[in-house]
């Protein structure tokens, strides 16, 4: 792995327009999902009379707080389809958006530490292959070949018994992804409006026809929520209850090191996931805090546990220093799968519940949500992820592949 120079920070990527009084579509939340939705609304559906409203700054939410892991090795057919669609889009997006956001397909290893982990991992490899997703089962020796700094000795507390490997998986620079999407959406005519909080909804009978904001009322043909951790707080103001719970999730980085960590390593069992950023920081994520919270910070004892696991797995990390820690708020559903589709309120659509793992889905979330907003109907890829599944019981249980490793 040779370090690559970071892309230049581009000067003016998007205009800074005043909100207009009305749009065909208003999207709430300028994270990756909101931006990708706006981009595909314009690019795929020719709908560019669109505003993306952001209460803070563009990509200041989970988009620039995540650990940037991209993979598609999910268990269920529905998940494999949507995450693999995302991965295929990732593979062509740098060229399409004319922006090198350092998408790096360095592979992702998911470690197994118990016999049950091994069975789950092998099952998922087989399921992945049946769904056309690249996946391999690796023995401990093969794991050590892929990532030589991993301790695969049988004498650790939770020995590595093997792992799944997806070679096409990897990482990308998340803030640059947002800027790349924002620049192109802006060029196509989308208004990106920062510092504009949605505080309520305009209704005509049972139908949502716009939003109230701290910068005035904005009318809209359709409204799409892409507000991640705050989706339920927002939906409630429109009279919609969502089956999500908001939890703090945190991550940290070390100071810079020479390239030592060639791939991405995740462990559900000991709850740590690690990659090395292009500049050289070790990027590590932890598990969610158990309780509900909106504080954008995580508990110290969660980090302590995660660091203990990291040092046991990667003895060379023992003397690395933590540079900074931070947290984001993730919206978690009962089956660890997202909700993308209509709500019981006409004119209001929701993209939420991506929990701890929605960065990797960014292009596909945008692609399918744009389709739903443009046509009023789900795309085949997001149809199974409708809100109705909690009533019909057709859950898409991804706790094994999704929660909480990314």
């Amino acid at each position: 792995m040779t370090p690559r120079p970071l892309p230049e920070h581009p000067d003016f990527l998007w205009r800074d327009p005043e909100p207009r009084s009305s749009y065909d579509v208003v999207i709430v939340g300028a994270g990756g999902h909101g931006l990708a939705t706006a981009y595909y609304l314009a690019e795929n559906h020719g709908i560019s009379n669109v505003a993306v409203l952001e209460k803070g700054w563009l990509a200041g939410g989970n988009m620039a707080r995540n650990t940037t892991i991209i993979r598609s090795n999910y268990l269920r057919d529905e998940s494999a389809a949507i995450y693999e669609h995302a991965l295929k889009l990732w593979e062509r997006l740098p060229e399409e958006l004319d922006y090198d956001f350092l998408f790096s397909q360095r592979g992702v290893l998911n470690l197994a530490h118990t016999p049950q982990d091994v069975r789950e991992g092998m099952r998922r490899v087989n399921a992945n292959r049946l769904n056309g997703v690249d996946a391999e089962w690796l023995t401990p020796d093969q794991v050590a070949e892929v990532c030589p700094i991993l301790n695969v000795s049988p004498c650790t507390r939770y020995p590595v018994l093997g792992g799944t490997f997806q070679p096409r998986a990897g990482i990308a620079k998340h803030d640059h992804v947002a800027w790349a999407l924002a620049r192109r959406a802006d060029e196509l005519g989308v208004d990106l409006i920062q510092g504009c909080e949605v505080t309520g909804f305009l209704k005509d009978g049972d139908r949502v026809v716009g939003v109230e904001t701290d910068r005035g009322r904005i009318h809209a043909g359709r409204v799409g929520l892409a507000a991640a951790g705050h989706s339920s707080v927002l939906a409630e103001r429109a009279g919609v209850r969502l089956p999500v719970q908001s939890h703090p999730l945190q991550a940290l980085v070390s100071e810079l090191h020479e390239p030592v960590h060639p791939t991405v390593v995740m462990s559900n069992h000991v709850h740590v996931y690690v990659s090395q950023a292009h500049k050289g920081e070790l990027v590590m994520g932890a598990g969610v805090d158990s309780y509900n919270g909106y504080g954008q910070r995580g508990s110290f004892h969660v980090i302590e546990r995660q660091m203990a696991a990291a040092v046991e797995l990667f003895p060379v990390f023992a003397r690395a220093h933590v540079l900074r820690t931070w947290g984001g708020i993730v919206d978690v559903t009962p089956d660890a799968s997202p909700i993308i589709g209509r709500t019981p309120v006409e004119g209001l659509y929701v993209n939420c519940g991506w929990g701890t793992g929605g960065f990797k889905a960014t292009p596909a979330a945008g692609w399918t949500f744009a389709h739903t907003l443009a046509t009023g109907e789900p795309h085949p890829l997001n149809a199974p992820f409708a809100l109705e599944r909690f009533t019909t019981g057709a859950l898409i249980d991804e706790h094994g592949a999704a929660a909480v490793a990314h």
Partner: protein
Amino acid sequence: MLLITCPWCGPRDETEYHYGGQAHVPHPETPADLTDEQWAAYVFYRDNPKGPFAERWMHGTGCRRWFNVLRDTATYEVLTTYRLDEPRPGGNR
């Protein structure tokens, strides 16, 4: 780290406890009569407020008893703790 006062043991670190989600969610009285929508609401839907939230915690490494905590999910302030058979202080359920 949160400092939570167990009604029986007193103030202890958060790591002694186990989180149990929203408090005051009664089991349906006539389960056989519920529609699918009502079942879904009972099984999958919980409040998720940004502000005071009544929730259950269990003192796992202490007395091993469940109790309720009123906690602000925005400030993380523990407002009060109370036994399961007591109503939510200040009303509102």
